[in-house]
């Protein structure tokens, strides 16, 4: 098992055992900034080698993926799960969007096995982050009623994760491979170490979310495991349709399967304050994230191999 996953497990166990271990909030923030920039930079460097002609259709398909996923999740949550309308919409938005931490673990997973993939994929992370939020709000409210769209757009598009990913992409794109080389020791050389520390804290946070699990019953737990697997299939299907490599298919499957726990919660708190934030976080952080990191990723890897072999 990848040692970074062991760090996550250490965090979960320490959290469950109520250890006083904690990464200071400012350090968690710092590590996440470094990860977001590193992912953006790496993607940007690769981006400079792509032609817009290849990218545009891919971007459009990924955008469709981000719109479709919450539209599938919503009726399941609302009718099978009997969640209130805003809660169903909010959870749907979380699962339509992505988790950068899961993406980072997937990157490390491929690196450990030396499997190549379309390295400009961070672009898709940005593209997937936003649309599910809009879909979620419209699902809860319709288009007409008084959503503060301006303030919301500001919150989402200028939120930390979008700015750092996009900023990193642009800097990497402008600077190119030689340009980023002198800052590579920090952003690339330390990537896995930083990710390990980050996952340690994620484990601690996950453990504290797990406490609420009982409150929300079995349906949520089942949804939080089954829906990502469905999403992964859809994501892998689109990747196959786009002709991505096996590594790329795996990445898009994992992205689809991941659920947001940063950008979407903030946006929902603002746009759908009547939705229960703890419900969504328990699902995405307390179940889906650990599931993906520990079991999902090998599954999606197998899935992408099957598709590649079959195709």
């Amino acid at each position, binding site marked *: 098992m990848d040692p970074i996953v062991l760090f996550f497990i250490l965090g979960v166990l320490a959290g469950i055992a109520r250890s006083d271990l*904690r990464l200071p*909030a400012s350090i*968690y*923030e710092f590590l996440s900034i470094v990860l977001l920039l590193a992912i953006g930079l790496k993607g940007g460097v690769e981006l400079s080698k792509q032609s817009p002609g290849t990218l545009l259709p891919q971007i459009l398909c990924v955008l469709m993926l981000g719109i479709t996923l919450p539209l599938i999740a919503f009726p399941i949550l609302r009718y099978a799960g009997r969640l209130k309308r805003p809660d169903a919409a909010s959870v749907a938005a979380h699962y339509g969007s992505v988790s950068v931490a899961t993406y980072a673990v997937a990157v490390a997973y491929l690196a450990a096995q030396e499997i190549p993939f379309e390295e400009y994929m961070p672009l898709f992370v940005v593209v997937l982050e936003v649309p599910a939020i809009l879909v979620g709000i419209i699902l809860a409210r319709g288009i007409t009623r008084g959503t503060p769209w301006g303030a919301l757009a500001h919150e989402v598009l200028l939120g930390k994760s979008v700015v750092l990913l996009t900023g990193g992409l642009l800097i990497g794109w402008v600077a190119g491979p030689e340009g980023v080389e002198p800052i590579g020791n920090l952003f690339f050389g330390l990537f896995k170490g930083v990710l390990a520390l980050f996952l340690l*804290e994620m484990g*601690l*946070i996950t453990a*504290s979310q797990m406490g*609420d699990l009982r409150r929300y019953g079995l349906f949520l737990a089942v949804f939080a495991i089954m829906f990502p697997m469905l999403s992964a299939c859809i994501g892998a299907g689109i990747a196959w349709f786009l002709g991505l490599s096996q590594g790329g298919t795996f990445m898009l499957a994992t992205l689809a399967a991941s659920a947001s726990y*940063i950008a979407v*919660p*903030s946006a929902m*708190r*603002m746009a759908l*304050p*009547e939705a229960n*934030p*703890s419900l969504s*976080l328990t699902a995405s952080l307390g179940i889906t994230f650990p599931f993906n990191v520990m079991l999902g990723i090998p599954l999606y890897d197998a899935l992408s191999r099957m598709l590649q072999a079959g195709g």
Partner: protein
Amino acid sequence: MLSESRKLITIVSESALEARLTKDIEALGAHGYTIVDARGKGHRGVRNADWQQAGNIRIEVVCDDATASAIAAHLKQHYYENYAMILYTSDVNVLRPEKF
């Protein structure tokens, strides 16, 4: 010297509301505010500031009675239903009443 009395209104709520609350407070006529980061527990459970979504802020505003009432009424109407928030007021004496 500290004979002039004012209201001190203290609000504890979610960190995510900082920008909106300070805007509202200023719009309602307060001349200033002081904020510290906090954590805590209440009806909406533990908010232990482990990471960004889960922290509180504690806002203090020194102002006259009317402004204090206006702030309390406004927050009650707009935030109490959906956000973790408590609010209380007390009497304080200030040094330079013209500032508040």
